[in-house]
């Protein structure tokens, strides 16, 4: 990470974190809402 980014590394990281956010957000709500009795 401390080295010069490779070409396109910003986009690759964006693609990775976009999907990570969708999955973490989805799983968190799908687990917590039923526990809260929704």
């Amino acid at each position, binding site marked *: 990470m401390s080295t010069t980014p*490779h070409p*396109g590394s*910003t*986009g*690759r990281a*964006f*693609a990775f974190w*976009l*999907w990570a956010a*969708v*999955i973490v957000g*989805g*799983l968190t*709500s*799908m*687990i917590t*809402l*039923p*526990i809260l*009795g*929704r």
Partner: protein
Amino acid sequence: MRTFVRDQGLTLGFFAIFVLAIAGQSVAGFLFNNEELAEHGRPEIGYLDFVTSSAFLVDVAENWQSEFLQFFLFILTTIWLVQRGSPESKRPGDEGIGTDEDQLVGEHARPDSPRWAKVGGVRGWIYANSLLIVMGVVFALSWLAQSLAGTVVMNEENAQHGMPAESWASYVVSSDFWNRTLQNWQSEFLAVGAMVAFSIYLRQRGSAESKPVGLPHAASAEESE
């Protein structure tokens, strides 16, 4: 900006159709849910109440778990099982986890290899299995979510019919839970098997999922390189 969009076209394209599909599912599910409530003479609920309800979440979760199970099993089984002629498979004889030299790990790592591919030890093992681990964790959590939301939905129905509430432990051995689970699994396994088998003989020119059109049926995509 144009380069950025082109370079992430596959993930951005799928993100867009994912958002459209889940939005469509939520609207159709909302309308269907309210029709059901009206038929039973119960008050309708608002859209936001529906999309945060277990009735919606159980339907989302049961599909998520099966998709991630599909990829988990595909990644796992293709380590040791092969299908001659399929671009989804390694070459017969290449079964197994490969040598450190083939995998560019430890002392065989390149200067530009990921850091955890160079280090070995626990971090090296985790990184070497990270795709399978993450797919497996997402599968397990989605399946857990399906069981939790399914229990709530089941107990709402039980309450309406004047029946006692069911525990999570009894829901996960219920016919409703396994009906929802297995109807998704069967279709995933069918589609993966069909993809592996059909890609031996069939082609899609230009697709990363296909062998080149003129490559013989016996060859895998790997052999074409």
